[in-house]
């Protein structure tokens, strides 16, 4: 015992950097290394999920069935969604959190570094299992990412693997969330009160609580599916006295907070970037925090607006309609505050700012269609049509994913120590923005005109807009190759200064670029706020 204690006492971090070779990554406990792995993993998943989207858009480019069978088409829509939601968007935000939260709050690392290692390394296993189902008898899951019974119970050999991989994703998310909460609550530099925390840290704190609240609910729902299939229970089987609609209630009790899990950190990223490039403090900082908290609370009481056609009682429909409309208020506050932050600033338009501005524009369009979807009688028409597909892709692609891109460009010089190629970044931005709209805007029209989602072939009156959307999808996919080039050449630019940008606020800009392997061995002093 005494030798160990003496050992610990003498132990300092000055003498060693990262381990060599694969051990650095497999046994990683450093928040920066784990953050890097999360970001690379999520980008790989983004490309795989994107390829699946291109299979879908190829088949839908013209009427008639040209490339794939309907079964495989359904496997593609299902896998595309699962991979993008759980493999691309969520891990990307956890990656940003890993890299930035300790540096933003003046902590030396995450609070639970070994659990951090676990929560990352579970993910490749989970997605390895999920992707392996593509090669199983009966193919990959084809019941949609919502896994509604009884259809999901018709899945072939892939079924238990689907459930197991969802469990693993859930465990990974819960561990990540615990780590983030413990880090934020315990490891802030002493002067940093909760309200002085950077807004990105705030939105992640709220997101982490949402994750802990709802991931076990998803785990419960899929476990009930598993026992219905293999152990003779009838939770969701009407023949045994169960209720298929109960699954939808449980799933969306997870699913709606999940939607905000994917957008709140995006709000945080954008709220960091706009003030930097407007050279002006974030407008209504406190109300931004309260609005994010309100949105998080409301997310728990609106789940059944995904289910207006299941035959709910009138009172239920009215409640969920009114509750859903309320979300427009805090979301509006956030958008207005971003615009007010820009107002009378001195803006420049580097790539992160461009992505952040496009986020505000295009996320707001997704918000508008969200408000339209809250109007129940109209929702009955929009439901399960391409209008919904347009809506959630607007909030997820030029919403969440643009925010992730913005964050990546914003912090990349801090990570690598070099400025990325600004011209290529801008090209990436403009092509992405043009093609993302070309892809998803026509889908509004398709849905209103009556095209259901999740169909491999369609009536001929939908041909024109589908063709446009397919062109857009390929354009968007190819534009991401530019981003790969930007990343590969990230270290060829001029060396970045510590502040990187024009006097941004935050502790992460006080450490050298690239950020050393260990930052803040002692709690830093908080600089005085720039604006009173």
């Amino acid at each position, binding site marked *: 015992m005494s030798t160990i204690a003496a050992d610990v006492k003498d132990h300092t971090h000055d003498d060693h950097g990262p381990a060599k070779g694969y051990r650095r990554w497999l046994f990683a406990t450093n928040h920066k290394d784990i953050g890097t792995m999360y970001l690379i993993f999520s980008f790989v998943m983004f490309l795989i999920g994107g390829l699946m989207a291109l299979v879908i858009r190829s088949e839908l480019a013209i009427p008639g069935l040209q490339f794939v069978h309907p079964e495989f088409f359904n496997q593609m829509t299902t896998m595309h969604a699962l991979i993008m939601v759980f493999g691309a968007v969520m891990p990307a935000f956890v990656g940003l959190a890993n890299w930035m939260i300790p540096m933003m709050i003046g902590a030396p690392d995450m609070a639970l570094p070994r659990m951090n290692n676990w929560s990352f390394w579970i993910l490749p296993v989970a997605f390895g299992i999920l992707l392996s189902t593509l090669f199983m008898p009966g193919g990959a899951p084809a019941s949609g990412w919502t896994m509604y019974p009884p*259809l999901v119970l018709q899945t072939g050999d892939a079924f238990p693997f689907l459930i197991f991989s969802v469990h693993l994703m859930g465990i990974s998310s819960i561990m990540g969330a615990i780590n983030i909460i413990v880090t934020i609550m315990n490891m802030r530099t002493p002067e940093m009160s909760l309200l002085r925390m950077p807004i990105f840290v705030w939105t992640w704190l709220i997101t982490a609580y949402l994750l802990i609240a709802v991931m076990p609910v998803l785990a419960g729902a899929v476990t009930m599916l598993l026992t219905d299939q293999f152990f003779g229970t009838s939770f969701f089987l009407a023949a045994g006295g169960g209720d*298929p609609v109960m699954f939808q209630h449980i799933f969306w009790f997870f699913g709606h907070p999940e939607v905000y899990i994917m957008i709140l950190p995006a709000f945080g990223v954008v709220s960091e970037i706009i003030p930097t490039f407007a050279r002006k403090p974030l407008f209504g900082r406190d109300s931004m925090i309260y609005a994010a908290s309100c949105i998080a609370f409301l997310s728990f009481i609106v789940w059944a607006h995904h289910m207006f056609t299941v*035959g709910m009682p009138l009172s239920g429909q009215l409640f969920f309609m009114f509750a859903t409309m309320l979300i427009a208020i805090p979301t509006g506050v956030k958008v207005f505050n971003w615009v007010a932050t820009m107002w009378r600033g001195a803006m420049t338009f580097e790539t992160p700012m461009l992505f952040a501005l496009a986020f505000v524009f295009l996320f*707001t369009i997704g918000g508008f269609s969200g408000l339209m979807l809250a109007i129940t009688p109209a929702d009955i*028409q929009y439901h399960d049509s391409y209008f919904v597909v347009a809506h959630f892709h607007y909030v997820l692609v030029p919403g969440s994913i643009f925010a992730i891109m913005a964050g990546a460009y914003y912090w990349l010089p801090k990570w690598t120590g070099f400025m990325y190629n600004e011209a290529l970044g801008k090209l990436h931005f403009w092509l992405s923005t043009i093609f993302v709209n070309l892809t998803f805007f026509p889908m509004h029209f398709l849905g*209103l005109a009556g095209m259901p989602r999740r169909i491999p072939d369609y009536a001929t009156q939908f041909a024109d807009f589908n063709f446009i959307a397919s062109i857009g999808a390929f354009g968007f996919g190819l534009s991401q190759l530019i981003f790969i080039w930007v990343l590969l050449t990230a270290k060829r630019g001029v060396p970045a200064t510590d502040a990187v940008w024009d006097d941004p606020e935050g502790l992460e800009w006080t450490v050298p670029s690239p950020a050393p392997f260990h930052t803040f061995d002692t709690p830093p002093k908080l600089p005085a706020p720039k604006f009173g």
Partner: protein
Amino acid sequence: MLQKTVLCMIGLTLAGVAHASWGLNMPQGVTELSKETYDLHMKVFWVCVAIGVVVFGVMIYSIFAHRKSRGVTPATFSHSTTAEIIWTAVPVVILLALAVPTAKTLVRLEDSRDPDLTIVATGYQWKWHYQYQDEDLGFYSSLSRPSLEARRKQSGIDPFSVDNYLLDVDNPVVVPVGKKVRLLLTSNDVLHAWWVPDLAIKKDAIPGMINETWFKAEQVGTYRGQCAELCGKDHGYMPIVVEVVDEDAYQAWVDTRKADAPQLAAN
């Protein structure tokens, strides 16, 4: 002259956009409630447009006017209680103005009392079965033969050469015009959903449960829709066709159907 040409072109474009076959907007439909639904949809759409014009207008102005390259010094303000109260209160008022008419329509949508006739629609993988409760009449309705042949992978048949490709059935539902039709929905296997945009109806068909909805078509015609809940590999191939006919034609259809029924059974 040039002005006239431009105006003419704009006019033609607008006419083209307004033309139904472009399919840019929700159909107004042929029931009172479908028109109300359309009106609600347009109302909330214009509210969004108005908010969008204001918010994006301010933002675009700011992007052009408040840029560093114009040599402006940034302001330092970071909050304004007045502004924040205004942009919290105004949305509340707008939402209330939307909520009241919406709730009224919703109440009427759910009122399926006193129907003139009742049809039970049962979803199957992948077709519909219709049972006319008062008439002792029932039949299956599945994708029609020409679409069935053209839909096969690389069938070599141009979908554009097939009438109502994927939206045609062998046995359509026939209902009388101006009568309140109650639809009871259930399923024999997985979830399905019965959607006909012109009737503004979409309701899930759930095994072990009976869902209820209704419509009263005000206009004679053929209205097409599709299954709207993913139900397996042929989800895209179980359309719905409703033929709204006048009272006499409806009676005649019921009579022939009934007369044919024993024959069909014998076959």
